[in-house]
Each structure stands twice: as structure tokens, then as C-alpha cells.
């Protein structure tokens, strides 16, 4: 069973959006982390991760999301999530991610709350 995944990046002037598709495990997580790190090195400190097309996620993938939150914190940046399912949001809140990153229903509200 192949896990097909993809990341679409839309970089605007003030912020960038990373939209994932597919199962967020270590493989997609590592690629997402690499893309986020490149954006941070280019000077982006406001990132949105849109998980709307990611139906399944595991704890290893989430641990890599935490690394991105920490990398942005070191640059006084902010990470906002959007497009989470109810179960994903519940899990993120349990793991205290909601204390250090924003969780919003859609991209528009995620961008508006930087």
C-alpha cells in the first residue's frame, strides 16, 4: 500500500501556506519540515499548515509538526493550523499544541489571526 502524499506551497508577501495531501506520517512530516525550514530561512515567520486534504495522521507526524512550531518560536514566528478534522483537533489540544500554535477552521481565519 503506497502512501501518496504531496505538499503545495503558496508563499505570499507576509506569510506562506503549506497545504498537505495524504497520510501525515514520518515521511510526509520530514518533507513538510524541510519545506517549512526553507521558508523560515527565507525570512518567513508566519506559516499556515492546511491539513484539509490529510485525513489520517500519526503521532510521529505530529511530533514533526511540533519541531516546526519550535523552529518558528526561535524566530519569534507563528504557526497556524487549519483544515483539521474534529479528531485531529482533539488530539492536537490533548498534546498541548493549541497552546503554542493557532488552530482555525480555514485558511482565511488562519491568516487573519497572525
Amino acid at each position, binding site marked *: *500500500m*503506497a*502512501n501518496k502524499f504531496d505538499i503545495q506551497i503558496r508563499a505570499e508577501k507576509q506569510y506562506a501556506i503549506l497545504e498537505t495531501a495524504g*497520510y501525515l*506520517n*514520518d*515521511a510526509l512530516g520530514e518533507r513538510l519540515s524541510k519545506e517549512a525550514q526553507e521558508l523560515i530561512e527565507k525570512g518567513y515567520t508566519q506559516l499556515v499548515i492546511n491539513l484539509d486534504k490529510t*485525513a*489520517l*495522521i*500519526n*503521532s*510521529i507526524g*505530529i*511530533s514533526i509538526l*511540533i*519541531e516546526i*512550531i*519550535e523552529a518558528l*518560536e526561535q524566530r519569534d514566528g507563528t504557526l497556524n493550523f487549519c483544515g483539521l*478534522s*474534529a*479528531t485531529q*483537533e*482533539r*488530539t492536537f*489540544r*490533548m*498534546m*498541548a*499544541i493549541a*497552546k*503554542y500554535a493557532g488552530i482555525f477552521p480555514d485558511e482565511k481565519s488562519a491568516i487573519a489571526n497572525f
Partner: protein
Amino acid sequence: MNRKKEAEKVSNTISNDLVLLTIPMRRDMELAAAQLASVIAESMSFYEQQVEEIQMATIEACINAFEHSKSPDQQVFTKFIMRSDELEIKITDQGVGFSHDNRAQQRNNKPDIHPEMRKRGWGLEIIHALMDSVNISSNNNGTTISMVKCKNETDQEDGQE
């Protein structure tokens, strides 16, 4: 559980309401178990959010076996027991058993900046949070995580935030 309840549970399980799947400990094979869990839960008319919770718990239980069991046969045995009011999922490996020593981090994470937002060691907590009851039995011949999701209205209401 008393004998009467145990007998009721057995009578609620029709013999052919049992699905078995053996998966190898290979990349993404947890998705095979999660996909099967989804099909079974949907066939039992669980709510969409409950189906997602069952899938995620199944993934975490499989990953737990992949990462920590050190099983010589490199296989995970999944058993789905469908009852009228609940779904029980048993994830079994024939590894070295559950201990804090063999649950050391597999991935070389950077140190946690915020201890409450630690990066690893969440698998069992996630399973406990998403399922209605969880039982772990383990010895030096292997580990079984048994988890139950009940079909009730309150689950759906609790999940809505």
C-alpha cells in the same frame, strides 16, 4: 466484568462477525489495518467522527508494535470483533513485551522546548483518549492492545467542541 455481562457479550458476538488481518511490520502497513477498521466501523454504523477515532487508535496501536515489539516474525495480528453495541479491536505482536526500556525513542528528536508539548511517547495516551476502554496485556512472548469503541450517542456529543 461479572459472568452475566461476559455471557451477554459473548451472545452478542455472532461467530462470523470476526475479521482477522495479519500485517507485516513494513512502512505504511498500519494503513491497511486502519482502512479495514474504517470499513468495519462504517458497516456497523458508527458516526463519521467515531470511525476516524477508531482509525487513528488502530494506527497508533500498530505503530507501537512496529516500533517497540522487536518481534522476530515481524508481524502484527489484528482482530476485529463486531458486537451489536461495540467494536473490539485487538492488536497483537509476538515481541519482547511491554517495558519502559524498549519504549525508548526510535527517532532522534531534538530536545523538547516545552515539556507539556513533548514530541514522543503519545501513542498510548492517544489510544486511551480516542477509545472507550483499553487493556494492555504483555509478557515476554508479546503484547496485545485490546481497545473497545462503544456505539452510543454520548460519544458523538463529547467529540464536538
